[in-house]
């Protein structure tokens, strides 16, 4: 008996959901195991996680607020993943977006909201986009892997943000805390209904707009099609006369712009100023989200929310169980690994089979028959 592995001709249908749920359960099980090994209650930890993430109304809203930047960044990286360009730089592009928006907010603080807000978004998208174009140019001109350069640019982007906050833009009234002055009211995104919907803010609107634009772009436009076709490789692109280099710039620029937009929304809505604490790794979570969702917009929305909820849950776990902060990234990593392993079963079917036995004799041999003992 041995395992027979075949490529699936048809997709699994509802089986997909089962595979994902099993993978998720497995990841959480390993998480609980790790908690138990470190002397905490594994099941208790999971209970806290779920209660904190999904148990109460305000935690659902909190997750939704965190899901906004993750969703936007994930859309951005998904765009480049579509054509097999590996943009790992959403975190840095997010930082640059925050820097660009801050510049606009501090420089034009007198403008009313309807003028200042679009200006902030525009600056954020331009800065984030430019940060995304850098690895694209390096790849196309010098053959540098965009994986390495976009990842490295994350650190540069974050350090740039810190440099500005600790230096030029530091609020003199902040008692030495690294933060800029609070933005004028025109530069802050308002909450939708503070009493009822908690911290949920109007930045949420950017998500359906970006999501619909993403779907329409990919399924209805010529460029969107060319992008998907390029994902099959540069040789096909050359055969079909696809503008490969232009498309690499496009996806990296648009991806950076989306991450930049996420950065500006995040600082403008949640803290109302720029401070280093806004960099909490949404850009990295976004990569996990895009991959788990297999680059589909609805999947990205759902997964972004799920991982945001786990972030909220992990924070509460830290407080209540005194587990290290690393539990959040560990959980994220485990989910990614389990789902990636599970995706094998979406592409291949595995069954137990028996290998056919070799025949004993060879027809028309040339002397071996006699020679065989």
């Amino acid at each position, binding site marked *: 008996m041995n395992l027979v592995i075949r490529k699936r001709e048809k997709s699994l249908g509802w089986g997909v959901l089962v595979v994902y749920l099993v993978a998720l359960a497995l990841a959480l099980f390993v998480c609980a195991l790790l908690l138990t090994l470190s002397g905490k209650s594994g099941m208790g930890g999971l209970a806290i996680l779920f209660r904190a993430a999904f148990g109460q109304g305000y935690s659902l809203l909190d997750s939704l607020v965190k899901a906004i930047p993750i969703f936007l960044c994930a859309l951005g990286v998904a765009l480049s993943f579509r054509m097999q360009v590996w943009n790992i730089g959403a975190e840095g592009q997010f930082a640059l977006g925050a820097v660009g928006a801050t510049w606009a907010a501090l420089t034009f603080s007198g403008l009313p909201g309807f003028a200042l807000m679009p200006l902030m978004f525009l600056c954020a998208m331009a800065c984030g986009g430019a940060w995304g174009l850098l690895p694209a140019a390096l790849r196309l001109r010098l053959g540098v892997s965009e994986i390495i350069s976009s990842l490295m640019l994350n650190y540069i982007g974050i350090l740039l943000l810190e440099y500005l906050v600790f230096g030029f833009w530091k609020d003199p009234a902040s008692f030495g805390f690294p933060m800029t002055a609070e933005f004028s009211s025109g530069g802050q995104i308002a909450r939708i209904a503070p009493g009822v919907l908690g911290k949920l803010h109007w930045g949420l609107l950017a998500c359906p707009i970006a999501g619909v634009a993403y779907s329409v772009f990919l399924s209805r436009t010529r460029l969107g099609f060319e992008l998907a076709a390029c994902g099959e490789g540069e040789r096909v692109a050359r055969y079909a006369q696809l503008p490969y280099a232009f498309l690499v710039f496009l996806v990296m620029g648009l991806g950076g712009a989306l991450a930049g937009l996420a950065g500006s929304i995040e600082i403008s809505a949640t803290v109302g100023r720029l401070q280093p604490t806004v960099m909490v790794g949404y850009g990295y979570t976004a990569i996990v989200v895009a991959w788990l969702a297999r680059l589909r917009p609805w999947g990205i929305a759902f997964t972004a929310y799920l991982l945001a909820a786990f972030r909220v849950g992990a924070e509460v776990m830290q407080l209540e169980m005194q587990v290290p902060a690393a539990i959040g990234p560990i959980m994220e990593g485990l989910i990614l690994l389990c789902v990636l392993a599970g995706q094998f079963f979406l592409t291949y079917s595995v069954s137990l089979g028996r290998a056919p036995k070799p025949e004993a004799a060879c027809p028309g041999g*040339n002397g071996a028959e006699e020679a065989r003992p």
Partner: protein
Amino acid sequence: MNGHEGSERLTSATPRTDIGVADVLPMVRLCGVSKRFVQVLANDRISLSFMPGRIKALLGENGAGKSTLMAMLAGRFKPDAGHMEVAGQPVDFASPREAIAAGIGMVYQHFMLVENMTVAENVLLGQEGGIMLNPTAMRRRVAELAERFGLGIDARARVGDLSMGERQRVEILKLLHRESKILIFDEPTAVLTPVEAESLFAALRAMSAQGKSIVFISHKLEEVLSVADEIAILRRGRIEGEFLASEVESPAELARRMVGRDVVLEIEREAVAPGRLVLDVKHLSGGGLDDVSFDLRRGEILAIVGVAGNGQQQLVEVVCGLEKPRGGQVDILGQDWVNFFQSRAWKGALAWIPEDRAGLATCRGLNLTDNLLLTTRQGFAHGQWLERSRASETAQGLVREHNVQPGNIEAQAWQLSGGNLQKFVLARELYREPRLVVAEQPTQGLDVAATEAVWRRLLEVRKTAGLLLVTGDLAEALQLADRVAVMFRGRIMNQFPVSDAAQVERIGSLMAGLKD
């Protein structure tokens, strides 16, 4: 074509008994081994014996089934029928590891070496005895081995610093150290300079003199003649002849045997009156091409024949706009190369049916509608908007008209068999109403029915276009073409109408580079 043709028809069921030494057990024996992929019989009842101390060349065009045969020997595929024996014992490899354990070693075209390690470390990687390493002893062992088989190499050198020829020696040393009894080389000279190739041949002879069985896979005729003891010719998945190298008189004779003239299929063709000039190539040189000149008119089929790797690929890349012509002049549809490719229209111009239909002409992971759009998207676009529903209808129509199975346009390209994929590619490219068509190996790997369907379409193309047919299959060229041009080392040796029987008879010699 020649007197041997009939007698060479040694079917795979009865291998010649005078090849190899009868009282020695073959190192490895294939007994009626077959392998089928969806629609293509890649290997058809192949029986071969690999004897110790002999160098056997497997000669065949791309797509003849060489790589499938290798993959079965290496334990990557299992035969559908027949079986293999190692030293007289039937074997059934479940994995490549078992094939290695049985003494079968492969030297692939792409080396599998760790560049940052030394030669000795690479050779012994994963095979050291205990936990502790003894670098001096490792070096000594590898140096001894190299010495014994005449593979001059410095065991201390870092692999990253070595030439391709030296790296290949490291690969060989890996196999020798594992005590592989049979060493299989897949086009080993493709990456070598002529001098390196010579020393490889010397090493092959040294290894065979010490009792190793060597299998040498190639399509280079001179090489095969200079190094092999025995030659087996593989064509369309079958052994089409097996003989001693000493029985072959010249490369020309070998070329004839390799390309073959056996008519698997005949097709009626009516002449079409030639129209205006669609392609005019004058003194094209550079990038592996040497003073290539020819022209092509509407209504004509010009076949470029030759052993693969003699400049056909470079010629196609220039004509299809991938590479700029370095020297000489190329005019397409009355425009020079630069102007034609700048203003390239998707319709009514050039269509290209590449050899690699699964990796180049189509996207594996896209469905048929998207694959239709790949080269016709300009026809379904309003500015930036794509008319997908009209594209789907068109794809459905083409699939029906050309009888592409399965007839479902939601199917992804990888789910189609080679023949159906080729029919689809043809349908798409002809939908563009081209006036110049370039087709490379259009029926390679297809069964008879699919070959016939493709041939009919290509003959139809002549009504509106000129067809440049690049093929390694002489029967195909003679069935379809009006004229034949033979390429050798980037040059066109001669071109003539297929009705010129005297010249047609000499194609084998021309393919081997002999002018007279």
